Structures are given as structure tokens and as C-alpha cells.
């Protein structure tokens, strides 16, 4: 049964989408969005690994014996918050880039860089 692996395929698909956006789009904010998708794919990967059939959420309760693996949850929980913090940092950088270059398209920035280099 190869179909039992479908969760990984979903993850890979998401990852490909995110990766594609990061590579192919020139807009820096778009790139950040792509990064976020990429990130989420990794999150889903971890969480789906931690899932157990017939298991329930890892909060101890009466009458339940099978729980999902709590370890990936912990890792991802912190990773999400760290992810937003780093995304915010990236956005801040983008804003500064916009202020100094007047554009957030990759090519235009490169052209401007070229021009300044040529001048000097």
C-alpha cells in the first residue's frame, strides 16, 4: 500500500509550491510568503509524523491510553512563534529596502546595484 504515504506527498507538494514561489518570483514580499508556505510544509511534516492511528491529543485524561507523539508538537509550537518573529524581521528588512531602493523587485534592485557599481 503506497497510498499510506499520502501525507508525505502533500507535504512535498506544499514544499514544491513554496520553493517555486521563492525561486521564481521577484517580489520580495512574495518570496516571504513562499517561505512561509515552505515553513508550514515542514510543520505539517513533523505533525503528521507524530500522529498515531486511533490516538488522541497528548493531554492525559481518564480512559485514554494512546496518545499522539508530543515531541513534534513541542518542536513545532516553538517553531511557529519563532517563524513569525523571523518573518517579521524579514518584512522589516523589506521595508528598509523599499525605503532606500524605492522598489522591492529583485531585478530592479540588482539593476540599481549595477548602476552604482558602474559609477564608482
Amino acid at each position, binding site marked *: 500500500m503506497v497510498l499510506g504515504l499520502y501525507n508525505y506527498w502533500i507535504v512535498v507538494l506544499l514544499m514544491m*509550491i513554496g520553493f517555486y514561489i521563492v525561486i521564481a518570483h521577484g517580489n520580495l514580499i512574495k518570496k516571504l510568503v513562499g517561505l512561509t508556505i515552505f515553513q508550514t510544509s515542514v510543520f505539517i511534516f513533523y505533525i503528521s509524523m507524530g500522529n498515531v492511528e486511533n490516538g488522541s491529543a*497528548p*493531554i492525559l485524561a481518564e480512559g485514554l491510553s494512546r496518545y499522539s507523539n*508530543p515531541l513534534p508538537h513541542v518542536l513545532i509550537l516553538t517553531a511557529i512563534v*519563532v517563524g*513569525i518573529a523571523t518573518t*517579521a524581521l524579514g518584512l522589516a528588512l523589506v521595508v528598509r529596502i523599499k525605503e532606500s531602493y524605492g522598489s522591492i523587485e529583485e531585478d*530592479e534592485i540588482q539593476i540599481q546595484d549595477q548602476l552604482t557599481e558602474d559609477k564608482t
Partner: protein
Amino acid sequence: MIAIAIVRTKDLLAVVMLTGIYGLLSASFFVVLDAVDVAFTEAAVGAGISGLLMLAAITMTGRTEAPKRHKPLLALLVVFVTGGMLIYGTLDMPYFGSFEAPVHQHVAPRYINDSMQEVGVPNIVTSVLASYRAFDTLGEVAVIFTAGIGVLSLLSLPQRRRSYRLDESKKELMHEQHMVVRIVSKTLIPFILLFALYVQFHGDFGPGGGFQAGVIFAAAIILYAMLFGLDTAKRVFNQTLIQLIAAIGLLLYASVGVVSLFSGVNYLDYNVLADDPVAGQHLGILLIELGVGCTVAAVMIIIFFNFVGRREAQQDANEQNSTELNNSHELKSTELKSTELNNTKQNNREGE
């Protein structure tokens, strides 16, 4: 479920909306996969804050995306090769949900079976987060703190004095425009704050904890800042105070570790904090979650305030420019779109 992600490759500001939906969607995905705590965090972060931050950034950087110039074929090729290799790699992976997978064999059983005796907290995620892997979490909090500092250094502005009269008139107008929303939010905000506290301290027993509570707390204050203006919010939550809180949270976390170090055990080993090991663990987790909550909330607020502050400064500059333009050219004010802008300018002109 995942189809949405594919369509998201569209351009424009709609991307942000779709990011929000995507966040909600992935959060419900996490609920289905039993990861309640993660869903909690993702809901608060992915759907709320990140969308807002991106919006704030977009308003500063412009909305449209330039059409692509280089061919995406190469990129597609690279992506597909990577994806194909990854899928090939997954063929050896254990099946989805199988109990025999190696992930479930090693550390997890111990957490599941023993954490009740050792830590005494029903929520295993909390106990792992704050007790077994506390050192790791300390690092994460430090990363968040650093990111906050980074944003601060990138976007913070020198203190500026704005004419108060302009503020007041703006406020009046905003008040008229957002009357209903404001009143409803004003009644809601205390409950949101209360709920954040509930999440903070109930994290031992149900889903929740410092990270989530921090984000929710920050969200409430962000709501306030959005509706009542940044300056009003800043008057309530002073910038330096927030920075102080962020630092204090991290310090609290670290100092708990130092206390246990001085008591003769390992760093962040809470057993010695009280006479009874389990009580000590409780105390330690409580303090640490408090530290985490403080830092996260404060950093989120810092980030948001700086973004919005930057934006408002830009807008002010724009308005200033356009008024000067108006004055010099005696233009009839054609480009005034709404009464709000109109009035602020009027006031501006009077001020000059």
C-alpha cells in the same frame, strides 16, 4: 484542502488574504492531526498576526507585483526535480499513523508514561516544553527576543513631536467612522485579555501556554492600537515599558535556571524549587511560562508598533508633501478622496 495552496500563486494583495485562509486551514489540519497546542498557536499566529504584519508591510511597499520577466521554466525544473527526489525518499518512510514508526519508539513513550509522575502536569506538551526540553525553549525565546531587537533597530524612529491638534481632529473623525466597531471592541478587549490569562495559566491542563497566551495578549493590544490610533495605545503601553517587559521575561526564564543551578542541581531542573519535586516542577513551569508569555507578547507588540509607527510616519510625510504642493500651486484640492484626508489637510494648513 491543499488545492488552495496551489492557486495561491496568484499575485496582488489577495495573496495576504489567502495567506490568512491558509493559516486557518493549516490550523484545522493540525486539529485533525491531534496537535491541539500547535493548532492553537497556528491559529493565533498564522491567521492573525502574520497577515497583519504583511499587510502593514504591503501598505508601505506598494501593492502590485511586477510581472515576471525571466522564464520560470528553469525554476519549475529545479522544483520538480527536488520534489521527485523527495517523493522517492518518502517511499521508505513508515506509513501515516502507524504505531510502529521509529519516531514513536524512543523518547515519546517515556514522556507519555512518566510525565504524570515526574512533572504532574496533564498536558504532556507543556511538560515537555517547559520541563524536559526547557533549555531548548530558552533558546527559542532568546531567538524571538533577538528578532524583536532586530525589528526595533531596523524600523524604530527617533521620537517625534506631532501637533496635538491634528491628532485630536483625526481622532474625532476616526471616532465617528468606527463608532460601532470601537464600542464593540472596547467591550471585547477585557475579555480577550482575560482569555489570554486563562490560556496562560490553564496551559498545564488543557491546550495553551506561554506562547499562545503571549500572542493572544498581543493581539488584543494590537486591536486597541488599530482602532484607537497608535499614539493612544502608546500612551497606555509605553515603548520603553514594553521593551523592559520583553527583557524581563527572558531574564525571568533564565534566572529560574540560575536559581536551580545555585541549589546544586542542573540548570533548569525545577525539582529543588520546592520541598516536593512535583510542586517544584509546577512552580518552575509556571514561572517559565510566565516568562515566555511576557517576552512573546512584548516582542509581538514591539514589532507591530514599529511597523505601524513607520507607516504613519511615511503617511505624515506624504501628507506634508501634498499640502506643500497645494499651497504653492494653489491647486484646487482634487485628489482629496475622503473627508478624513480633507480635514486633516485643512487643519494642517491652518496650523501653518
